[in-house]
């Protein structure tokens, strides 16, 4: 049950000193799941896929898709190369959780990725990490070398005929490379332009070969499922969105940070008990629950809401990356929304007109309003632009840019109207 968080023992990042060292990880039962899966008679690639599907690990990269189900889309092996591309781009504003795995428990991710690779008969795994995470890229390279030295990566794992390579690659500053097909383009050494789907990456991914993309935290959940079973996993947190979650809490709270807790913790407990309330004893004004693209909720919309896909959808938002941005009563919503729109305008790759032009218009009109030059009808123009952006583009960046504008204006309309000057245009 969700409210059990007070007795919850972290699974992804347990409090064990030096767990980033491979020997400590092994001493604490690490790489046992991998060995059992690859070497034992108990598992086949197909049964691993089924088990993970049954556990319902919902993708932690934003979309919440069942990981095992995604793995099952890989076509039958034909002897050619097959890839797993692990998404460590972590660029959605408010999100800073995957780097905690790189730093404190890299091997749980490596082990999870290796199990996933075995299940999908993958020949090479890449982990793509945003270029700004230079320090964390170094940590991952070290961890992978240690795993290679122990024989967990390379030829003939555990004396079987399964072989797999595992490499780190880095970005160089581009939010769009977190979108899965843009990431593939970037990995191939190109500009990060999202691809038109279909074909989906499982059919034609890296170099035209079958490829699956998963988030770092998603894969870090896999060893636990193999070791403890699906019933154990499904018992943690919210029923339809089970498992531990790395909540990133930032903004106006007393103790921001990344907290590992079960899914489905009540939002107000996360803000008041875990992050220890609003700074300076101020009142809560709004919450962006899962990274800057997820619709903001007003304080009065948060009663009874918990951090899982269903509860947040009912409340009018989304789980996203569980990167919670907390805003106090003094927050200027016009400024805040303008800055979010600036981000998406800056990061649009420019391939699709509704996104390239739309993000530009959103930012420009919001800047005008922010500077006191806006008119009431600009608010309706903004809403109209969002309608023209949604669902009409190659990737979801356009939607990610449109949602915050639509919902922030609708939910804080008074504040936006108050900022507009009196109309100088006669109404016909």
């Amino acid at each position: 049950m969700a409210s059990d968080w007070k007795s919850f023992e972290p699974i992804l990042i347990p409090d064990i000193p030096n767990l980033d060292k491979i020997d400590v990880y092994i001493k604490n039962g690490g790489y046992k799941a991998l060995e059992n899966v690859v070497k034992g008679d108990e598992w086949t690639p197909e049964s691993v896929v089924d088990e993970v599907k049954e556990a319902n690990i919902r993708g932690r990269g934003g979309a919440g898709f069942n990981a095992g189900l995604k793995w099952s889309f890989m076509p039958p092996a034909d002897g050619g190369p097959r890839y797993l591309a692990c998404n460590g781009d972590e660029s959605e504003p408010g999100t800073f959780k995957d780097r905690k795995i790189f730093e404190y428990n890299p091997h749980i991710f490596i082990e999870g990725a290796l199990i996933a690779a075995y299940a999908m008969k993958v020949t090479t795994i890449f982990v793509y990490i945003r270029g700004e995470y230079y320090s964390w890229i170094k940590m991952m390279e070290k961890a992978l070398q240690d795993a290679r030295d122990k024989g967990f990566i390379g030829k003939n794992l555990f004396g079987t005929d399964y072989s797999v390579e595992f490499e780190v690659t880095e970005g160089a500053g581009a939010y769009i490379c977190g979108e899965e097909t843009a990431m593939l383009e970037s990995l191939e050494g190109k500009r990060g332009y999202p691809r038109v789907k279909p074909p989906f990456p499982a059919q034609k991914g890296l170099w035209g070969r079958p490829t699956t993309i998963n988030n770092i935290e998603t894969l870090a959940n896999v060893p636990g499922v193999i070791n403890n079973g699906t019933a154990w996993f499904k018992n943690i947190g919210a029923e339809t969105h089970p498992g531990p979650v790395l909540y990133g809490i930032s903004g106006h709270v007393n103790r921001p940070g990344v907290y590992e807790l079960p899914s489905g913790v009540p939002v107000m407990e996360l803000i008041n008990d875990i992050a220890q309330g609003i700074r300076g004893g101020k009142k809560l004004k709004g919450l962006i629950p899962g990274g800057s693209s997820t619709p903001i909720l007003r304080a009065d919309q948060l009663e009874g809401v918990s951090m899982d896909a269903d509860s947040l959808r009912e409340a009018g938002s989304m789980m996203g990356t569980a990167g919670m941005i907390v805003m106090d009563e003094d927050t200027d919503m016009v400024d805040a929304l303008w800055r979010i729109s600036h981000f998406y305008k800056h990061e649009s790759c420019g391939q699709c007109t509704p996104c390239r032009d739309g993000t530009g218009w959103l930012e420009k009109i919001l800047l005008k309003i922010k500077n006191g030059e806006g008119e009431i009808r600009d608010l309706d123009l903004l809403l109209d632009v969002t309608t023209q952006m949604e669902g009409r583009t190659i990737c979801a960046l356009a939607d990610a840019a449109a949602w915050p504008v639509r919902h922030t204006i609708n939910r804080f309309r008074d504040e936006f109207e108050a900022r507009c000057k009196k109309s100088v245009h006669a109404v016909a």
Partner: protein
Amino acid sequence: MEETYEFTKEDLKEIEAIKAKFPEVMPATLPTLWVAQRRFGHVEPPVQRLVAETLDLPESHVHGVATFYTQYYKEQKGKYVLDVCTTTSCQLCGGYKMLHYLEDKLGIKAGETTEDGMFSIQSVECLGACGYAPMMQITNDVYVNNLTEEKLDEVIDSLKEGKMPEFESVGMPLLENINNK
């Protein structure tokens, strides 16, 4: 005269190791641009040309990649590039205040470089450290968290002496501390 650029033997060895990770050479473009930027401090067109020649790829391809990604310096920057995050969480926690403090302190605006070539300031998008806002990154390397004016003074002083701040480990907050608060 245009400056000439060459990779060292070690650089070339590193580039060979990069190429070995992939089934073809094009994926080496981003990492090789990184090797070049770490060596020369920027990837101006002559450096892009060197990368293209070293990898035997069209110069137009390398140029296209270099110009897509914000972390590559397409023109020379100061010795220390101060990337101050001003995206949402940092904005809420005083990111712009920190940016403006730096601008006043160094007498330049975001996007500019001090006359002595020591510092550049940039206002950048979310760096994935939102819980430690406001924050900045120095020359694509170390993160400096929970900025205050005093902390900025200290960092600038130590950079003037050629000392980069150390990597700051932030730690995971423990539940027991919360339960016993």
